[in-house]
């Protein structure tokens, strides 16, 4: 489970915000205490947090933008296309 979703916080949340969100999640009783404790533990550890940030954060805008444009050429994405995406970032 995505720990950010579980604690209802953003990837930019500070340690203090993580602790507060954990307490709130426990009070709300929407998730098990074990899951909440695990999410808090992972997010409080800088090493595991870096990995979690990487795993759970995807900027989907370039894809949505390409898909929204109809993407007639999407099915023939070429390396040139990949270059264009690079420039969009």
């Amino acid at each position, binding site marked *: *489970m*995505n720990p950010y*979703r579980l604690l209802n916080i953003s990837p930019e949340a500070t340690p203090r915000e993580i602790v507060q969100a954990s307490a709130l999640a426990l009070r709300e009783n929407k998730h098990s205490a074990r899951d909440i404790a695990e999410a808090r533990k992972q997010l409080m550890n800088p090493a595991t947090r*870096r*990995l979690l*940030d*990487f*795993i*759970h*954060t*995807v*900027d*989907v805008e*370039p*894809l*949505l933008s*390409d*898909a*929204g444009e*109809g*993407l007639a050429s*999407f*099915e*023939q*994405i*070429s*390396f040139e*296309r*990949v*270059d264009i*995406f*690079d420039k969009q*970032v």
Partner: protein
Amino acid sequence: MVGKNQDNASSKKNKAPDLLAVTATASDRALLLVQFWQAERVRKMREISLGSDFLHPVVLELHAKASYIVLKEEGRRAEPTEVRHFIDCWLSFLFHPDLFRSLSGKRGSAEQQRLECLDLLEAGEKMVRKYAEQQGEGGEQFIRHWEEDVALLKILSNLVGEGREIPLYTPSLAWQAGIVADIFAHFFRKTQGGQEAFVDQEGFLAAGALYSGVGPALLLVRKGQYDAAKNELAALRKKSGEKNSDSFFAYGLAQVKIACGLDALEQGHYEEAEEMLIELLPLPLHSSGLEQELLAALDQEDRYLNVDELIVCVHVLTSLHKHSSTKAVKKAFCSVLTHQAVLLHNEGVLDGKGLLTSMEKAVSLNPDDEFARMAFDDAQMDAEILALHQTMSAGKLAEASRIAKKSSYQGVADQFFIFAAQVMEQVETEDYPDDESAFFMIRQLLEGALQVDSKHRMVQEIALLLDKLEDRLETL
């Protein structure tokens, strides 16, 4: 070489892409993929994207991350195809030029990004190793898949340097995404210094083979799907008649044939194994590693008690030896030939003469093989003892003594005296037609015994018997 456990590619949940994925446009699939990601329906995401969808860096990123989550959550229950999908997407994304967008240190230095990338590689490796350990013996293939692809992508990524135009995908994902021909052309045809980047020419050929026409068959071999690999070869044969003179293709083809031939051997399909392993010879240029791999597989201790396997191995090695007479080939050929000859002789299929011929050949191939030398000595001694028996039974004692004297085996001389004792017993029990012929026989025996070993204790006994017979003749 290759994994033994076949991927269970036909599991229910991975059977076929979702119907929607097949019928939807690429744009629809992209939107669906994002929706599934946002709804955390990560298990269903693998079924959505098709072929060239994976060329979009965000699609690749979504698959890399979703497959990581799936593998983490599924643990040991994850399907092999899910693990392979993770390896392909994770590695292809980590080596993608767009990776920096997703790194927390994206505004940091290149060194920071490099370290972060190394951490992510380590995280992926941990995941694969954990899964592999939980699978027991069959898990080794996933570690091999990971290690081979990491090594390959590391080398190729160093080749491109700045401003690379081609995304670098693992061979499997490159085939899936349809960019394999471009990767092959870019890294193995156009890039200068490509060959030097690899430890040797063989490593370069093996890497290029994965992106060459024979790549799909090689990837099937890697998954342990040998029958499918053979079908792939048959399709290739129809298409190009295997006449492709490309050195990468030739190397890959040899790899597939060796793997499939050895699998056929393991399965007891001896004729097929022999055919596959012989038709691939001579091995292509720069394939000493492949040759070593083949030799190690043929000359294996657990084959030494299986006559059928040994026969195939001897035939293959005979053929290989005609094309390549390296020390390693001679060594393996000698070993396998010796075990085959000894086993056939023990089972009564091969007579002493046949054994001696085989052992002469084996020792000439590798005079340092102790077992071969021992078996050769035994075979030679047996042959001399047989010749000794034949001459003595024919009453040719002088010739028999010459054989015993000439022999370097104590066993042959011993046999001469054992036979001598039998003759003496016959004479003493008066089993001879007359004393005169017995006298001449024993005199010949004494002369022979003196030639063979004048200090043997039997010499004295024969002399005493001869005296006795002489006395008896004189009294007549």
